[in-house]
């Protein structure tokens, strides 16, 4: 009994504590705390430019925090050497915001890339896996095309197939729904959910799309001003009374979240007074 408890997997696959991060003089995170639960779909929301992509890069240590700890599956990633880091990264699948397909390889070879790099699978087996993944995103027919011949939405779907190719434990999606038509969107939303539940993986999903997030996520974090402004299940967020959450969830231009990037006074600038 006791042993089982000790070996029981930790609840949180990712724990972020007191995270600080700056780009030049601009402070992007200022004491951020986030828990990503194992086996769930966790959504990260927030206005454009709040640092959602930056957060994903910090979790995967493409960037290092100025201060604070990030623990992935019980390991503090700050202290990993390159070999350990690469070992950890093999457990991640990441969908980049712009797809980031390798432009000198065909769609098929892009999805096969992580398999060829890290496994000794036979060509037959690789072919099987790649075609299965491409089929799941509806692009089996595009296997022989080059990335340059794909539309933005198609490229993102291929990138999704590539992220899933090695059956990772943690899937990270940076804006997977942008540029998809309603049909592909529905398919991809269900795919994200099904991947998560059927394979027992954990998913981190960045999106602006409040409606889609509500259908797919177990728990959402709303970031604003370098901190967590609100968190909870989609229902909880929808019912939240805080003005900021309501503004974001219902898409209103006026409210505590500034729609404008920090700038001098509009009228003053138009009249040219700021330059005098």
């Amino acid at each position: 009994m006791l042993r089982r408890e000790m070996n029981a997997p930790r609840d949180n696959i990712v724990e972020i504590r007191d995270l600080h991060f700056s780009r030049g003089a601009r402070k992007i995170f200022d004491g951020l705390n986030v828990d990503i639960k194992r086996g769930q779909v966790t959504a990260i929301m927030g206005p454009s430019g709040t640092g959602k992509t930056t957060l994903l890069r910090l979790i995967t240590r493409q960037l290092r925090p100025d201060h604070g700890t990030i623990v992935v599956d019980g390991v503090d990633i700050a202290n990993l050497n390159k070999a350990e880091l690469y070992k950890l990264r093999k457990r991640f699948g990441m969908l980049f915001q712009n797809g980031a397909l390798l432009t000198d390889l065909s769609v098929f070879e892009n999805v096969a890339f992580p398999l060829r790099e890290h496994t000794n699978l036979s060509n037959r087996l690789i072919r099987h896996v790649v075609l299965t993944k491409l089929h799941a995103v509806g692009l089996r027919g595009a296997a022989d095309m080059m990335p340059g011949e794909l539309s933005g939405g198609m490229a993102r779907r291929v990138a999704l197939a590539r992220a899933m190719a090695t059956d990772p434990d943690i899937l990270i999606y940076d804006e997977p729904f942008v540029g998809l038509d309603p049909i592909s969107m529905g398919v991809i939303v269900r795919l994200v959910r099904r991947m998560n539940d059927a394979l027992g993986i954990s998913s981190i999903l960045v999106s602006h799309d409040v409606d889609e997030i509500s259908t797919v996520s177990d728990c959402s974090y709303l970031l604003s001003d370098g901190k967590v402004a609100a968190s909870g299940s989609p229902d909880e967020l929808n019912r939240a009374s805080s003005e900021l959450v309501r503004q974001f969830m219902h898409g209103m231009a006026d409210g505590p979240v500034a729609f404008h990037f920090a700038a001098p006074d509009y009228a003053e600038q138009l009249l040219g007074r700021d330059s005098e």
Partner: protein
Amino acid sequence: MPRELWITFVEFVRTFGALTLFLVELLIQVPRVFVRRFRLIVAQVYNAGSLSLVIIMVCGAFVGGVLALQGYANLTRFNAEDAVGIFAGFALIKELGPVITALLFAGRAGTALASEIGLMKATDQLSAMEMMAVDPIRRVVLPRFLGGVIAMPLLTAVFSMIGLLGAHMVGVMLLSIDVGAFWQQMQSTLDLRDVSEGILKSVVFGVIASLLAVWEGYNAIPTAEGVSRATTRTVVLTAIAVLITDFMITAWFLR
């Protein structure tokens, strides 16, 4: 003004140091990459070579022809037009072959390398590789570097050979220099030391041109503007570095 000079100097030393470290980092991984990614390297030798081959052949022929013309025009004053062969041979094999090949290589293959790697960076392809636990240095940078290093001496050999043929065509066929004298004097005067000077230069220039190209691409600011700047810098820096090293190697061989 002295302050600006000082800053430029410090900047130069810093860049030079970083470049040296980068080269060391590359060289350490060479054996491993050579074994595990041999096919990528071959593909890059083909890539770099085929990009520059036609230009190098055309330029080689004309440079050889000019050497024959100039040699003839100036050597006849001393009644030494038979020495046109030696003159063209020395100039091509020791000096113009390696230098001009390196400059053409930088303009054609070097810029292509720099902009390719820079664009891969700007479109997150290098980050994506890192996320797939694939080291972009090993997968992208090193094969291209080694491809360039291997291709340069081969291209230099082609340039010098075509150049000699060009000199032969102009000198022997156009200006009627004695064919025996043209080749015989060249053969008896050029020795191993001269040829090895040319080979050494071509290898060193190959390292310089390839290193600067992959370095500029890998460290490009990941925007369209940054990549275009990196491409320009590749050509300019390679030209400067090659001409300075050329002087040093030549001086060293004279010692």
